[in-house]
């Protein structure tokens, strides 16, 4: 894990360079009200936001349109395919950063999310300031997944 100081610099750089114009976010939530609020906040931050109200549909979208999104923001508790299943299939299977979003702030759920590979876990109602930072996850994810040179890893 990068030292906290290093992460700080990555964040600054990210916010300067790629912030966040053009970063394409897929937002998944079965609650249309929450979905609308989050999407408009994302647009205000400069992201391109696409709404989806079903985990199942989201999986189809992601499978059929690989490379169309840079990051996924998903609610945890959904009736068909829930946030954890998405985390598994998307985070691991498709190599996309996944941020979880929920009213559920219970320790077990948050820990479960992070342990299953979520980049971040935001508690609803989410503030626009927190959404600005998800751009950093896109960069950190790209850096982590592309720059690992096997030659450099010591035994």
């Amino acid at each position: 894990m990068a030292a906290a100081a290093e992460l700080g610099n990555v964040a600054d750089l990210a916010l300067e360079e790629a912030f966040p114009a053009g970063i394409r976010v897929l937002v998944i939530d079965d609650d249309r009200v929450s979905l609308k609020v989050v999407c408009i906040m994302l647009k205000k931050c400069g992201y391109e936001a696409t709404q989806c109200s079903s985990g199942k549909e989201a999986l189809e979208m992601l499978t059929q349109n690989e490379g169309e999104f840079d990051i996924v923001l998903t609610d945890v508790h959904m009736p068909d395919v829930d946030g954890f299943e998405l985390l598994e299939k998307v985070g691991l299977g498709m190599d996309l950063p996944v941020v979880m979003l929920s009213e559920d702030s219970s320790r077990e759920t948050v820990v479960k999310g992070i342990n299953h590979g979520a980049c971040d876990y935001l508690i609803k109602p989410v503030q626009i300031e927190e959404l600005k930072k998800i751009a950093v996850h896109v960069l950190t994810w790209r850096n982590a997944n592309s720059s690992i040179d096997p030659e450099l890893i010591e035994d």
Partner: protein
Amino acid sequence: MDLSLLQRTYSDLLSSLFTEGILNQQFTELQQLQDENNPGFVYEVVSLFFDDAGRLINELGSNLNQQVVDYKKIDAHVHQLKGSSASIGAQRIRNVCQGFRDYCEANDPQGCFSCMQQLNQEFLTFKSKLETLFKVEQQIVASGGSVPMIQ
């Protein structure tokens, strides 16, 4: 009606909604999200809430009236209502949902019924007051005035 009177009415209404705890800071966040690119945003999202929450509350009512009460199903609905009310700043509704979830977890029918009643009440109050607020807002805009914002 006189524009400044309309504006004063609006401000008073909005103020009282905050003082009574019907709305919280989250609602102000929504108002700040509204701009030239998203002119009717607050009205749209609150209207969406009226629809979806109304439906959820009806569902809840009928679920509670079943012979065998499915607390898990009820909890799932309340959880969703809690989330949507929180996202628009409907504080009192959100708080009732919190209590409701606790009673669901305890499989407590009386507690659930009591929360159901509170929920009905709070939703009716919320809907009626916000509809009034929007009406006054529309009148202000129609008169060519600007809508006062609470800081």
